[in-house]
């Protein structure tokens, strides 16, 4: 990641120090501090950053929510969350210091007086903790509250403190292009674009960032990473789980808004983008947005939608989507999509990207498979190379992150017989490092002011431009039902076989 640290030019003692952590003092304000996300992810992530010495020395956390609570009660809640959800055990000596930095302010999101009280409290915290008026606001609330929170921050001056102000927003960034623009206009009334951090936790995963490193830190792959050598690319994001307890949310969302518009298009952009000049926010985000601009919108003709029926996943019998609690029996919400996508640029013209994602697939797996073209001429007898497959390179993102290269090798035999072999590299067999949670990476970046892994508004809008035409077309008609535990409806297989290709079995 690009580092944003105190300047060695003004502080010569900074020269040569490893800049892994954040150094500029700040207060981290969590709106929706009593919610699920705050307790499961945010507080454990902040705690673990602090315990590893990565937070600024002068730092405080302020929780803001409607519930009436004292600081001590909030600290007790935080402690319980850490005991339950932190990936590390609580370090008692650090906990004391961490607890002292936790504060709580009670108020409704539409209560300007409460926002003013929050501002006064923050000023007192600045004086006590030396946090110099720097703020990172995290909106850990349902998206419907974003406008009122942001407006009230603007009305009460929270957007304009003595130091810097940044606002972190969770997806979804709108429901479609129009609402995404409305949301942006609302937020821009109180914050400039450079102050806005749109978080997609998927981009904080080490494994997703590894796509970037794999492509641009190795000289041997990039020269063949073009339509000249690549026949097609397959991106699979499969979940074995069903809708679980999120039926109401999923009915509103569906597979395109839940996965394609954000996670999947971000992975596609990482795979297809041009090399940026530097691994810095603007350079990386510009290249990703450029390739999304060259990506054709999803079309009805080149997509298949599905909805899971009943079936078996890993030996367990599971109900159909329409039988899940909270789902109307006549629901048309798609839980699966397969699509053929095209990128109209010099590098990728004529090389399709096939994507598929769905719930209740046979297993949980995310992978990118780059399928290379066959050699132009095989100087072997037909019998020798009868079963020879084209080369492929598979980047597995989860689980068992790694790289697999498929190539032909001579089988031991008095005659020439060629077999296809896979060479697997598992990241886990080379590094047993403690892997930080995606939220730790992204929260630290927000505190440091590094926007590389956050989504810019133009990227959000382009993603909606790619998805909106299909969402409009899908308003009518019904998805095809596929058996839980299968790789989707039959039409998904036809989508690719009509091009003379076939899906990989991950």
């Amino acid at each position, binding site marked *: 990641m690009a580092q944003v640290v105190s300047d060695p030019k003004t502080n*010569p003692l*900074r020269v040569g120090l490893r800049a892994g952590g954040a150094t500029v003092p700040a207060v981290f304000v969590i709106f929706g501090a009593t919610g699920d996300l705050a307790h499961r992810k945010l507080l454990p992530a902040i705690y673990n950053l602090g315990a590893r010495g990565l937070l600024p020395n002068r730092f405080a956390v302020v929780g803001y929510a409607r519930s009436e609570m004292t600081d001590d009660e909030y600290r007790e809640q935080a402690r319980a969350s850490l005991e339950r959800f932190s990936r590390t055990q609580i370090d008692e000596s650090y906990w004391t210091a961490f607890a002292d930095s936790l504060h709580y302010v009670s108020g409704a999101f539409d209560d300007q007086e409460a926002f003013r009280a929050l501002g006064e409290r923050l000023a007192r915290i600045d004086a006590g903790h030396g946090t110099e008026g720097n703020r990172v606001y995290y909106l850990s609330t349902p998206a419907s509250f974003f406008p009122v929170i942001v407006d009230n921050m603007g009305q009460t001056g929270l957007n304009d403190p003595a130091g810097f102000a940044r606002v972190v927003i969770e997806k979804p960034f709108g429901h479609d292009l129009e609402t995404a623009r409305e949301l942006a206009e609302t937020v821009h009334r109180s914050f400039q674009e450079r102050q806005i951090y749109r978080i997609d936790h998927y981009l904080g995963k080490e494994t997703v960032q590894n796509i970037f490193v794999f492509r641009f830190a190795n000289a041997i792959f990039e020269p063949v990473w073009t339509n000249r050598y690549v026949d097609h690319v397959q991106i699979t994001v499969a979940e074995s789980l069903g809708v679980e307890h999120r039926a109401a949310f999923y009915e509103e969302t569906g597979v395109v808004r839940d996965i394609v518009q954000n996670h999947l298009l971000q992975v596609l952009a990482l795979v297809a983008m041009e090399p940026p000049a530097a691994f810095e926010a603007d350079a990386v985000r510009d290249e990703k947005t450029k390739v999304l601009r060259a990506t054709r919108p999803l079309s009805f003709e080149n997509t298949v939608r599905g909805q899971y029926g009943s079936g078996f996943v890993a030996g367990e019998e599971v109900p159909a989507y329409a039988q899940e609690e909270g789902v109307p029996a006549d629901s048309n919400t798609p839980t699966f999509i397969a699509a053929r996508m095209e990128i109209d640029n010099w590098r990728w013209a004529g090389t399709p990207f096939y994507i598929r994602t769905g719930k209740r697939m046979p297993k949980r797996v995310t992978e990118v498979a780059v399928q290379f073209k066959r050699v132009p001429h095989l100087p072997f007898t037909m019998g020798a190379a009868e079963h020879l497959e084209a080369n492929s390179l598979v980047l597995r993102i989860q689980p068992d992150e790694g790289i697999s290269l498929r190539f032909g090798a001579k089988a031991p035999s008095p005659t020439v017989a060629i077999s296809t072999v896979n060479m697997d590299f598992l990241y886990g067999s080379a590094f047993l490092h403690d892997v930080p949670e995606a939220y730790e990476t992204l929260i630290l970046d927000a505190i440091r002011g590094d926007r590389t892994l956050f989504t810019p508004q133009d990227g959000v809008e382009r993603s909606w431009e790619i998805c909106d035409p299909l969402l409009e077309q899908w308003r009518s008609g019904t998805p095809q039902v596929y058996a839980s535990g299968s790789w989707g409806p039959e039409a998904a297989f036809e989508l690719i076989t009509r091009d003379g290709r076939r899906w990989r079995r991950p």
Partner: protein
Amino acid sequence: MIANPPVELTDLAQVERALAADRERGTGSVRATTLNLVVYAPTAQDVSFTQRALERIGGSRPLRAIVATAGSGGVRATVSTSCWLGSGMQQVCSEQIFLTARADALPSAVLSLLVTDLPTFAWWQGPIPEGLGVLADLARLSSFTVVDSNISSLEGVARVGGLDSWVTDLAWLRLEPWREAVASVFDRPAAAAALAEVRTACVEGPINEARLLAGWLSSRLGRDVELQHDERTHVERVAVRCGGPEYVIERPAGGHVGRAYGEGTTEHPIVLPILDASTLLGRALDIRAADEVFEAALASAVGRAA
């Protein structure tokens, strides 16, 4: 950790075969190795210490460790493989070769056992000898030499720095949280002005770490910074005096959360971990280039009287 039983050998040509047999038994035919680590362990106590450190770091950095001890008689080697299970049930494996030979035979024995074309680190555990001797030979095989001035001397470290191998001092790495803490005091514009007035560093800690800290301040600020020192097992307190104002960072003995305070700054807690040997070694193995800040600090520290 899964450890394959050690195999004792007197013919170094059999070492690779024994390690390959280990791989076939436990881990299949694919291996990932990221570096060679040559350890000079002069005593049995050093060998045990090395074993414990390797157990801690081998899982995060698959490596081949060649632990060399000078002895009498012919070359003897004990080889073994240790593997750690990752979350995906894949194994990370490290190879250990415990080697005993006459001191003058050690470098050639080590050379024959290095994995080809990987970064090689030499970790010298004892005091640094006046004439360098075997240390110089092992350093020549390596890109990086790791020493600890706390059990040797800064002057010895400086001599190692003159060899054709980048030197890393574990004492310097131990100071990293303290350097970060001291630097953070002067991040604020108000305190930054006080940098021009830094005159004295009062350090409670091991003498060589104190000298390095003062050398670091002197070299970074471009002028002499006086050192006042009280001996402790670990660094416990650093006070930087800038004319009148004083900025203090301290942690309780044995604790790892301290506090920082000083004129114009708000007192605040600060994480100052006591880094154990395996953590320090792991960090040393992550360094792949010259550390010019360390070299300047060392030169400054050595240039002044202890």
